[in-house]
């Protein structure tokens, strides 16, 4: 099963909608609650990253019999140094975003902790693609 969601950069009032939809679908499919929780945390962080940093993006989720694959791709500023971005506490979020309680520099590491596999590809001034896999 494949699901696709559009995410608009800067649109904080709708942040989390894609993750919420996926959570409902996984529940209906009777996926193990622990796997649902991990997948939802990883997806939400990815969704917020698109809203906070990119111009626009897409979230594609593919649910197979033995795994959940998600691909979050955006058109945005990209990440110059991925190792640095992965570090807890490092963030390039704006002051406005930080005031909302986002931008603590925990997003990517939360994604890593809550996925079985994770890959990031990024090109500066073009965009970023994050792929995560969680096994069922």
């Amino acid at each position, binding site marked *: 099963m494949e699901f696709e969601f559009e995410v608009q950069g800067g649109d*904080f*009032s709708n*942040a*989390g909608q894609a993750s919420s939809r996926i959570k409902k679908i996984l529940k209906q499919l009777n996926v193990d609650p622990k796997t649902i929780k991990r997948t939802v*945390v990883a997806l939400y*962080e990815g969704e917020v990253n698109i809203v906070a940093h990119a111009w626009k993006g897409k979230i594609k989720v593919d649910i197979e019999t033995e795994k959940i694959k998600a691909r979050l791709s955006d058109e945005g500023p990209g990440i110059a140094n991925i190792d640095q971005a992965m570090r807890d506490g490092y963030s390039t979020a704006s002051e406005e975003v930080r005031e909302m*309680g986002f931008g603590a520099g925990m997003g990517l590491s*939360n994604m890593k902790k*809550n996925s079985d596999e994770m890959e990031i590809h990024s090109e500066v001034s073009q965009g970023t693609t994050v792929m995560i896999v969680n096994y069922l």
Partner: protein
Amino acid sequence: MKVSELAEKLGFEIVSGKEGLDKQVVGGYACDLLSDVMGNAGEGQVWVTLQTHKNVMAIASLKDLAAIVLVKGLKPDKDMEAQSHEEGVPVLSTKEEAFETAGRIFELIK
């Protein structure tokens, strides 16, 4: 303990999301960093915070939290309040600050 009992015993105002007052409270989490709550809060906990925007409800719903407790007399933004009803996650409010609030909740449910 139900959210309604916790609110009554600690004198917290029930601002919105009455639909969820029967939810069971199993613990609490106090933090204003959304990613930290997303990463570490657990199902059935009450979340003590000063954040009053709609994304708080998105996290509460995704994490199956029992309720939100806003400190220092803060009230939710209009869209946060609306989503609290939609999701059935109560928003409570107290005049005390986070330290006292977390302490009193801990004393009550430990």
